[in-house]
């Protein structure tokens, strides 16, 4: 494939899901039992043959760094290229970047050094599988300036969504930044392809003109100036835009076809931690759940996602819950519609319940 560098925004749209991003960045939100959100974009890049990835971080990126390490679990611990963290860069006059454009500005030094012809830019707030090399092929075939990836689905109201209208040949002829009407739309999934040199010129131009928004100031008016094409991502796509969306996306992984699509064929890479295999006691009753390594289950678990090292006590009943790493659920507890962040302890005999549209959230390291 064409030589390509990847850039991932690990820290964008965090305001959508404050519960989980208070202690971490978007990309390091745990999902699906053993993964972090960033694993999907990063694995997609690796599986597309990309071997240089710049990871743009903002604040609270300790947990992200802990997860990514040297990049060896993604085969990105390399002498040439590999995984490169791009922490916020600012001179004396500036503070932390406030938007996508400023963040990209901070990455120009990295991009200038890259010898790769093409660049793929992706967010880390979504679960999907995509071979970016196909997008680049499409980009080259159309002789495009910019290719934006979209997914057709119904949106209820505008939620930082950018939607397109495309011509028959795939060229985008209109971009709405804040669509007012709902319905089935071609929604931007925040994956963009361009030639590296072209992107650098765009950024340079934006600095000169004092632009602040990539979508509003560059892409939307760019429709007439540049050849912008849309590439359709078919199949499963879920972006984590709220705690409720986080909740339902996890449960969608209980569906065999979704699981096959996301995890089948090509692996989703993640940090490995060598927990023992999951253990089911004599008294365990488990239905329709994902159970990770290191779990010890003595109670009942239904329609739930258990991350690594979770202990479910005797006679406890856990239904429709997401229980993150190293939680201890005491004996005779009754939990339903609960999202419990890492390292929490629920004492014996507690009953906790949320509901489908409003899960009960337990913060990291709580004792209840």
């Amino acid at each position, binding site marked *: 494939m064409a030589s390509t560098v990847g850039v991932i925004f690990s820290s964008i749209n965090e305001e959508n899901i404050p519960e989980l991003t208070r202690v971490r960045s978007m990309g390091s939100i745990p999902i*699906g*039992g*053993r*993964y972090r959100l960033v694993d999907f974009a990063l694995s997609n890049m690796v599986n597309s043959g990309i071997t240089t990835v710049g990871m743009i971080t903002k604040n609270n990126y300790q947990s992200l760094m802990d997860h990514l390490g040297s990049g*060896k679990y993604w085969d990105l611990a390399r002498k040439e290229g590999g995984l490169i963290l791009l922490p916020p860069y600012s001179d004396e006059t500036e503070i932390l970047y406030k938007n996508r454009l400023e963040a990209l500005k901070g990455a120009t030094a990295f991009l200038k050094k890259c010898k790769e012809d093409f660049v793929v830019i992706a967010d880390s707030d979504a679960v999907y599988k995509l071979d970016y090399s196909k997008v680049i092929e499409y980009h080259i075939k159309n002789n495009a300036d910019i290719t934006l990836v979209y997914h057709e689905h119904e949106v209820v109201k505008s939620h930082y969504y950018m939607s397109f209208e495309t011509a028959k040949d795939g060229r985008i002829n209109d971009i709405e930044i804040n669509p007012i009407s709902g319905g089935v739309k071609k929604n931007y999934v925040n994956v963009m392809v361009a030639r590296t040199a072209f992107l650098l010129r765009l950024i340079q131009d934006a600095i000169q003109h004092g632009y602040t928004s990539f979508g509003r100031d560059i892409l939307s008016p760019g429709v007439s100036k540049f050849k912008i094409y849309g590439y359709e991502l078919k199949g499963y796509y879920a972006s984590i835009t709220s705690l409720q969306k986080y909740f339902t996306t996890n449960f969608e*992984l*209980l569906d*065999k076809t979704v*699981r096959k699509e996301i*995890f089948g064929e090509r*692996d*989703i*890479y*993640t940090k*490995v*931690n*060598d*927990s*023992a*295999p*999951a*253990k*089911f*006691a*004599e008294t*365990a*009753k*488990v*239905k*329709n*759940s*994902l*159970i*990770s*390594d*290191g779990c*010890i289950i*003595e109670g009942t678990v239904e329609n739930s*996602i*258990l*991350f690594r090292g979770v202990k479910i006590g005797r006679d406890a009943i856990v239904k429709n819950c997401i229980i993150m790493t190293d939680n201890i659920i005491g004996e005779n507890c009754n939990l339903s519609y609960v999202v419990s962040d890492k390292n929490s302890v629920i004492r014996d005999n507690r009953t906790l319940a949320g509901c489908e549209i409003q899960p009960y959230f337990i913060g990291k390291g709580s004792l209840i």
Partner: protein
Amino acid sequence: MLRKKECVAMLLAGGQGSRLYALTSNIAKPAVSFGAKYRIIDFPLSNCINSGIDTVGVLTQYQPLVLNEYVGNGQPWDLDRTFGGVHILSPYEAKTDTSWYKGTANAIYQNIRFIQMYDPEYVLILSGDHIYKMDYDKMLAAHKEAKADCTIACMQVPLKEASRFGILNTNPDGTIYEFEEKPAKPKSDLASMGIYIFTASKLFKYLELDNKDPKSEKDFGKNVLPAMLAAGEKMYSYRFEGYWKDVGTISSLWEANMDLLGVVPNFELSDRDRVIHSRSPLAPPAYIQGEVINSLVATGGEIEGKIINSVIGTNCVIEEGAEVIDSVLMGNITVKSGAKINYSIIDEDVVIGEKAIIGAPIAEAVKAESKTNGITVLGRAITVKKNGKVSAGEIVDKDV
């Protein structure tokens, strides 16, 4: 700067493991799967890194492909080092003397130059077919404290089983006065665990002597240790208390797997202080829909059938209506609907067809005439067709 290592470990991983029959047709014994996500060699390698030993030579000979691939650069055990780390040592062609490893002592002898690169004071000899957790550093401390020339780890075994082991006859201070390899009438119940620490200079000396002895079988237990004892070297026993199991036979391999089950198991893998590392596969968490009782299930499983008292390896698919009882499934195994598996060990990449019957319930199976105490064994990558049947105690290594 002159660099050295205090202690270098040499792991004997060349054994054929013929008593594991179909499980070792194509792979070396240390590469055999164990406990749903591990391979036997994970235990000595993890023990090394958990004991602060970061230089390990792995001596391979028999069917090393899977083992070499698995050990790789040692990264899963943090043994990818710029100085030290894990090294696969295969027999090689030398200018004067070309040969396969002729025995455990000869294997080490042929790699003396590897050991000398690290200029160690001590050499730890390990074997690759035991399941246990041990702090070799404590044993090394005892060796140094006693100013011993050789320290042999040992543990108490039932006296009636003692004739299967190398037996140490010791004085009250722990010194060894006699070493008997598999004695018919054992005088003590202290069995050697096949774990030795040598003071390096003494090891080199006795390996040289042993190499020159044409009558020697080039074996530590039979030749080198008795020779050192006869020459009056200081040999100590080191008592190990804890779980240790030689998994050299089908029934002991089955038992060791079963020892992992239960909330308080005979052998605990989930304590976080001494983690057993492995090349963990990249599969999503296990999906459980069926009935799973008193069992282990590794990642990647799609479990819709019934599993009782069993160990289920990575990426196994157990379809609805299938039953797995008292069995060990190693990895990448598909059990189709209606199939029943009882008291069996099934190697990787096996497909069991619809309504196939594998083995028989324990109570019945143990009465069957077999080499495996009634355990049914299916070898790697075979397919059992729809309605196929494999009787209790049978060992199968081709499609049925």
